[in-house]
């Protein structure tokens, strides 16, 4: 019984020490509501890739398949 009380006192002391060591948070809440910003971001249309860019990508992919020796040279410049 006495041992339990001693343990409890030790824990209480430790708790107080820890509380004292950590500075209280100055401003736990956000300065402004971020949810409307998030909604606006979600409503934005996704980035559309024009057919021209897909064609360029396909051409590049095909060229690298036919000339794989160029891959290290391209990596070197990236």
């Amino acid at each position, binding site marked *: 019984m006495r041992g339990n009380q001693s343990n409890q006192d030790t824990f209480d002391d430790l708790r107080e020490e820890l509380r004292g060591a950590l500075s209280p948070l100055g401003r736990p809440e956000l300065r402004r509501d971020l949810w409307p910003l998030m909604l606006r971001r979600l409503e934005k249309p996704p980035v559309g890739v024009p057919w021209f860019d897909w064609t360029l990508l396909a051409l590049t992919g095909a*060229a690298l398949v036919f000339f794989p020796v*160029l891959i290290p040279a*391209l990596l*070197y*410049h*990236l």
Partner: protein
Amino acid sequence: MNRHTYLRAYLAGIAVPTVFLVIVAAVFTLVRYVYNFPIPIERVLVFPMAFVPNVWGLWNLLYAVFFAPRHVSLGIFGGLLPLLLAPLGYTVAHLLQFPIPPHVLQLAPIGLPIGMILYYLAWKYLVGSLNAELGIG
């Protein structure tokens, strides 16, 4: 977000090649030390590791300062960068006596446009999205 525009432009430019650098370094290391490729790749590794990312950052800074206000396309501006990097890369490799395989040089007329297209796409979509996030351009 008008503060430190140049710093933000530089960081947005340097971010993309820095991410790819992990892949490039991994491929080079794998080829050289796992498959014992007999060409000393580590001799020229400084070019993609240190030079290229900084040039990307400076190129984006240049874009933010001079070309974004004139509404120049970021993709086209970035696509021109291989015209600077290719000769520089060749010069570095030559100065460090790196043995460039002759068939790579023969394919340069094909490799340069491919590099320009890849750069155009990377700058338009990757650097462009970072610039938009950081309020540049």
